[in-house]
């Protein structure tokens, strides 16, 4: 049998192809993965008595719009920046991503600013945008402020893509939004809701979730410049959403998951021992979860604070729990907000108005107090349906700022974004 050698041009093609693939191989090594960055808040000086602090006020000021899905971050000057979405209803074309700043000297939130609209996102991403949702804001250790939010070009939330904006001057100016490429299927079905986790080398771990063929959570790994360089599955199947990740040390972390299944209705958790690269099979915890978002943060003594709706159904009560790192011992610290009806049953509009007037006074903070009359006049289908008016306290977002204060923002009856602050002294008092 004679061996047939390829012709000279064919050899040239083989050589060119070999060079091409060798070049691709050399220029695309596997991305590195660094440890979780640990932020060390300033701890109280020993032997000094710190007064317990627990305060609340509204971060938003609009009286007409449906507001939802808030997030907050601490800035180096001690101020805070919160973001949320607001519009005529969830999923409406007029929904905007809005922000406000908390002035530490006055202890109040300033005017609302528009961060992103359907039109601004459309112009920058060069895609038709139907609706916006779920903004998340976080300050990176390199002092760049990141804003992530969801946009939909077609279909419902399952058709979402994640957009990103970045600011180099603590939110004074922002880059134009661009879309992260997170999925091979038309770049749809990736949503963001919870706080990112930063890594030692500046890379960003963004907890995301899918809602298309499955309902599962992922840990998106972004370079310090916000390019997607890897991703890791946290859960599988069709029953978990919106991972809230807490780093315990450089390698260990916990993801709390919203339960979207139909069997046990409990909060799920998954552990990582390698800074987010692999995750344990999610397991149910003690608190209930009525398919609602939750948020968690670590305390200096390695405990975990978790804000959640500990209910089988409805979102009429938002509670603050503390648990150990093993998540076996759960203790209710405080009900942040709850309906006067223990079952969360709806009230008639008249009765509701009387109750929410009192709730408003207890929650608004001084600056927003004069809005009471207008607020009561504007109560509408955001809280009242055919069966009556309901209380809804949901979508918490939790951070611990570098000064050691805990900040929690959440949707207050979809009419305001409420901000609750407390310190370790308040926590110690509640733990006694």
């Amino acid at each position, binding site marked *: 049998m004679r061996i047939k050698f390829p012709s000279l041009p*064919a050899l040239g093609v083989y050589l060119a192809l070999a060079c091409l*693939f060798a070049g691709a*191989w050399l220029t695309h090594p596997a991305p590195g993965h660094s440890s979780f960055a640990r932020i060390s808040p300033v701890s109280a000086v020993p032997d000094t008595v710190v007064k317990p602090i627990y305060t609340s006020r509204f971060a938003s000021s609009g009286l007409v719009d449906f507001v939802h899905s808030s997030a907050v971050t601490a800035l180096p000057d001690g101020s805070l920046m919160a973001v949320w979405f607001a519009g005529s209803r969830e999923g409406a074309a007029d929904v905007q991503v809005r922000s406000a700043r908390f002035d530490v000297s006055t202890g109040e939130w300033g005017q609302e600013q528009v961060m992103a609209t359907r039109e601004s996102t459309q112009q920058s991403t060069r895609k038709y945008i139907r609706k916006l949702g779920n903004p998340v804001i976080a300050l990176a250790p390199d002092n760049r402020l990141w804003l992530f939010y969801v946009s939909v070009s077609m279909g419902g939330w399952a058709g979402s893509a994640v957009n990103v904006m970045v600011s180099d001057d603590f939110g004074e100016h922002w880059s134009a939004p661009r879309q992260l*490429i997170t999925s091979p299927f*038309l770049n749809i079905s990736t949503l963001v809701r919870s706080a990112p986790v930063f890594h030692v080398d500046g890379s960003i771990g963004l907890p995301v979730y899918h809602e298309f063929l499955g309902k599962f959570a992922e840990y998106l790994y972004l370079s310090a410049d916000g390019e997607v360089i890897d991703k890791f599955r946290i859960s599988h199947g069709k029953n978990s959403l919106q991972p809230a990740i807490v780093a315990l040390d450089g390698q260990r972390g916990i993801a709390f998951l919203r339960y979207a299944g139909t069997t046990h209705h409990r909060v799920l958790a998954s552990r990582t021992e390698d800074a987010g690269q692999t995750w344990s099979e999610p397991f149910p915890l003690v608190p209930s979860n009525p398919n609602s978002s939750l948020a968690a943060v670590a305390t200096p003594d390695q405990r975990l604070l978790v804000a959640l709706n500990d209910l089988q159904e409805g979102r009429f009560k938002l509670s603050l729990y503390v648990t150990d790192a093993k998540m076996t011992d759960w203790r209710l610290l405080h009900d942040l907000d709850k309906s006067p009806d223990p079952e969360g049953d709806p009230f008639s509009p008249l009765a509701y108005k009387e109750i929410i007037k009192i709730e408003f006074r207890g929650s608004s903070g001084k600056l927003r107090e004069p809005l009471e009359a207008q607020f009561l006049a504007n109560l509408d289908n955001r809280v009242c349906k055919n069966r009556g008016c309901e209380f809804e306290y949901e979508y918490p977002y939790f951070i611990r700022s570098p000064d050691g204060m805990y900040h929690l923002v959440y949707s207050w009856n979809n009419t305001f974004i409420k901000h609750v602050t407390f310190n370790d002294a308040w926590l110690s008092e509640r733990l006694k």
Partner: protein
Amino acid sequence: MISLWQAHASFAMIIFLILPSFGLNRGWRIALLLALLAISFIPLGGLSLAVYLRSHIDDLAITSLVFMGWGCLRRLGMLPPAQHGQTSVLILFAAMALVLYPATMGLSDLDPYRLGYSPRPLLIFVALLTFGLFYLRNYLAVVMLAGATLAFVLGTKPSHNYWDYLVDPLLGLYCCLALLMLAARRVYRRLTTLRGSMRNGSI
């Protein structure tokens, strides 16, 4: 600022390939392709028609652009019909789509899309595949895979994932449907041949 050349080229080529030939000669077909390219720039509500299409089909893979370019050149009579392995191109990209999409979107515990972020094993596989296809003289598939890899090296798309250069849902869907049609045609032919031979046997 996102470069939209790909969106405009995709718009023109997709519609050109969907439309029938209308018995036009080569000159008129070129004019039609250019007219479609011009139409892709027509603004509607502040966005061009190409952008609307891009909003629904996303940026196509480089392989799709090569495949559509090849299809357009054939339609224009500038390339002869493929002599070898058109079916193997369909099988290759249908298999890629069937491996990638259901698993990535949550129907499997494995996520093959991750391979595209650390692409060295995938590059070796695609390189071997390309060499094999070149040996088999399947030049269309070779140009598609080599073009995708070259674009990946140059970073012509915003994605850092090799898969996004190799395959897209439109290409996957086309290949699956084309394979189904080929299979149906083959079954029909076999059945008619069988019926014919049975008739001949009964006489």
